[in-house]
């Protein structure tokens, strides 16, 4: 320790001219503050800002130059033997010089900024949106990091050894490794883990350089090539170890199982098929989110990017699931079909926009930035595209593999187009003007639709192609749900405070019966199986199965804290039969409930 201090003192003595230069830079802001025309409205601001700029620039420049030379120059000039001919331990040489170098960087910063701060203290509240303390800390951390990095680069470059190629490769490898460690965390939206991982690796790098410096002097002594070799071995060895530990940790984080999901969850159920998407924060893994596409029939889980969970879409036949796989600024749709060995990439890049999938998943329509494009999934190619009006929202359905109908919600209202791929034509077929936002529910053949304006109190039956009103189905201030069922019948749920009622209509809109629902806060439609309609109530959460043929509430499932829906953009009922309704109970378990039998099972 004593010898380290002796060496540090020698370094200070040798480089005292730097302190003189810093004093000159400390005076300069006061001169600028006194010059009329330069100082603007507030001389204090000029002094504060210019001293900050000078201090930062001086400290950073000194850090880079000192870092590159405080060991490297003695080595390349053959002067390291001066120390090694004396009774001084290598560690004393390293830490003495290091102490002097870092204190000089800190010292010049304080020397330049100090007088200005003392004189103009009130002008220092904050800058660039951060406090003065934070700003100074950032400048000093950057400067000292540059000091250490410059030392490494200086040692490598001055050795004039071909080993520098290996160092470059190792640095690239480290960078690539960090990228591959961070990517799954980005996919898991684990910003806190990423932040601490990068801080930890940064600390490991600093420790590797600090330890590596001592090691290079111990092993290399007066030989610059051996210095290089020793520093390389220590630095990359330490970083390899740190990366291995980080990889182990990241591996553990991403190894989360569905059972580890706790707290807030995203869950989407395929109403016509076996799929369930589960996503949420994983236990003991900070803010890491994990997601799976689960097949509730065969128990198979497919890991997906948690950012994709909200973008999950199922085909009407329930056999396929599509989700976006995010890679940089691209998002490629991936498809998994029940029974297939692995998911397959569609080759279709979608980022933003509205995606509508044909019943069997063979074709996809995308509306993005005013362009409607139709893609063939199997052939991975664009079939055709056309310009459509700028829209706020889009719904649509494939009438056949070659015909697509688009419901474009524009500022002016709903505009309806049909897109014919055999004739390559886009034909406007109708519109519903004036409505700000419409809930649409088409019958299975897409010939008629139930329309409910977001803020209006009327449900109408309209022609699905032209938008023309066929008849009014219901009106009132408390209309909650309106839609076509699998079998082509229509329901409208009216929820006046004391007497909620379900109106049942035939496919053409003629009334069949009204079914009294009893008291409850009916919030949504959870599915139908041809015989029953399942509605959801809140406070408390209950699933209510209503037998449409008998006109009675047949079964209730309490404890359904949250119903799990899906296919937000689908306008037609599912094709397949309803198997189960899926909900989350108060303990966040995902439960599948059979409304026909009342049987239930825990899925996740």
């Amino acid at each position: 320790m004593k010898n380290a201090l002796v060496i540090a003192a020698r370094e200070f003595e040798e480089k005292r001219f730097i302190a003189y230069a810093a004093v000159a830079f400390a005076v300069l802001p006061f001169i600028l503050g006194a010059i009329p025309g330069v100082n603007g409205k507030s001389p204090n601001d000029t002094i504060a800002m210019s001293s900050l700029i000078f201090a930062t620039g001086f400290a950073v420049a000194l850090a880079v130059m000192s870092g590159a030379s405080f060991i490297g120059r003695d080595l390349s000039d053959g002067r390291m033997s001066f120390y090694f001919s004396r009774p001084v331990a290598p560690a004393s040489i390293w830490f003495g010089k290091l102490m002097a170098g870092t204190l000089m960087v800190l010292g010049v910063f304080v020397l330049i900024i100090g007088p200005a701060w003392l004189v103009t203290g009130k002008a220092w509240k904050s800058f660039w949106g951060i406090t003065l303390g934070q700003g100074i800390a950032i400048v000093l951390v950057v400067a000292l990091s540059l000091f250490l990095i410059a030392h490494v680069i200086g040692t490598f470059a001055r050795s004039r050894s071909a080993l520098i190629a290996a160092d470059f490769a190792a640095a690239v490898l480290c960078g690539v490794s960090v990228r591959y460690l961070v990517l799954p965390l980005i996919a898991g939206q684990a910003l806190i883990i990423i932040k601490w991982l990068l801080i930890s690796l940064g600390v490991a790098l600093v420790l590797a350089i600090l330890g590596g410096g001592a090691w290079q002097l111990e092993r290399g002594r007066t030989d610059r090539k051996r210095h290089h070799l020793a520093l390389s071995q220590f630095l990359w060895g330490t970083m390899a170890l740190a990366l291995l530990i980080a990889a182990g940790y990241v591996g553990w984080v991403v190894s989360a199982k569905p059972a580890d999901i706790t707290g807030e969850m995203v869950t989407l159920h395929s109403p016509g098929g076996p799929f369930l998407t589960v996503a949420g924060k994983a236990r003991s893994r900070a803010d890491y989110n994990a997601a799976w596409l689960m097949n509730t029939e065969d128990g198979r889980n497919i890991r997906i990017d948690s950012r994709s969970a909200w973008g999950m879409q199922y085909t009407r036949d329930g056999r396929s699931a599509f989700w976006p796989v995010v890679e940089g600024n691209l998002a490629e749709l991936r498809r998994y079909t029940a029974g297939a060995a692995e998911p397959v990439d569609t080759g279709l890049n979608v980022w933003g926009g509205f995606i509508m999938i044909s019943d069997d998943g063979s074709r996809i329509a995308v509306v993005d930035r005013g362009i409607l494009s139709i893609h063939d999934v199997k052939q991975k190619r664009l079939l055709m595209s056309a310009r459509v009006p700028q829209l706020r929202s889009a719904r649509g359905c494939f009438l056949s593999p070659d015909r697509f109908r688009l419901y474009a919600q524009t500022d002016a209202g709903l505009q309806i187009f049909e897109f014919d791929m055999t004739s390559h034509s886009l034909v406007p077929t109708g519109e519903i003007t004036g409505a700000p936002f419409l809930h649409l529910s088409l019958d299975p053949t897409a010939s008629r639709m139930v329309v409910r304006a977001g803020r209006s109190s009327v449900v109408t039956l309209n022609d699905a192609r032209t938008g023309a009103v066929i008849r009014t189905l219901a009106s009132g201030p408390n209309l909650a749900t309106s839609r076509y069922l699998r079998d082509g019948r229509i329901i409208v749920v009216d929820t006046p405070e004391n007497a909620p009622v379900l109106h049942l209509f035939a496919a053409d809109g003629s009334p069949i019966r009204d079914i009294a629902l009893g008291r409850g806060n009916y919030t949504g439609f959870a599915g139908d199986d041809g015989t029953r309609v399942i509605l959801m109530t809140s406070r408390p959460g209950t699933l209510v199965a209503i037998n449409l043929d008998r006109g009675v509430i047949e079964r209730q499932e309490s404890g359904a804290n949250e119903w799990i829906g899906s296919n937000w953009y689908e306008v037609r009922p599912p094709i397949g039969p309803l198997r189960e309704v899926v909900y989350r109970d108060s303990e966040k378990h995902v439960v599948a409930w059979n409304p026909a039998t009342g049987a239930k099972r825990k899925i996740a």
Partner: protein
Amino acid sequence: MTDNAIRISDLTVRYGRTLAVDRAALSVDRGAVYALVGRNGAGKSSLVRCLLGQQKPQTGSVSLFGEDSWSRRTALMQRIGVVTEEADAPPEMSVAAIARFCSRLYDKWDQDSVEARLRTFGVPLPSRFGSLSKGQKKQVSLALALAISPELLVLDDPTLGLDVVARKSLFEEVITDLADRGTTIFITTHDLAGVETFADRVGMMENGKLVLDEDVDALKSRFRRIRFAQPVAIDTAVLRPTVMRSWGGGAEAIVSNYDDLAFERMRSASNIGAAEVEAMSLEEIFIAIAGGKS
């Protein structure tokens, strides 16, 4: 306590594919003066770096006073004075600052001797080290090395850059005086004439190999230059000529195993005729050995 101040065993130093020192072995007794000679690039500096614990050899070991020079360098340097081939002190520092810096690193330090020596050779203490002449820098290094009254003084080509007066002072006063006081001295030099008077033992390196390691007196006694009045064929079973060449009307041979009795027997048996036998200086022996090998 070991009698050897220096013991080098099986020392090998490589730089990539270049073999700088090839299995060198030597020892120097306490209080002896050892002169290591060799051409530039022969491997002397590599051997000295290993000796001072500044470089780790690929194989072999170097011990100073019985301790490994690599692992015990820091402690050993309290007992060893070093004058390096190239001046290595920081050029921006003044001579006084360098002396002050060094004084803080050693357990014992004679500042008066440093100042006296530098005064003698006209080296001003306030001068920047970088502004000094090559000879002055050597004097500074020497003054620093002697300030600790070293048990071992390692001089790596110390006369390089010194003028005649300084060189004479170094050899005739400093080293002789130190040797008389029992200080072990290891010196690498090209100035063989200078070390001839005080070196106890001499080593010669060539292409990394220590080709000679012998007491100076023994070496000088077995090397002779013999000039024959007429061409002769030397019986190599008796005398081993290192160099053989024509000289005037006769021949000149430099033999490395001269012996008076053997020579007289050979001369009378072979009827060689008149012959002149001369002793040789270390420098002449070095040239003969180096020339004979090349």
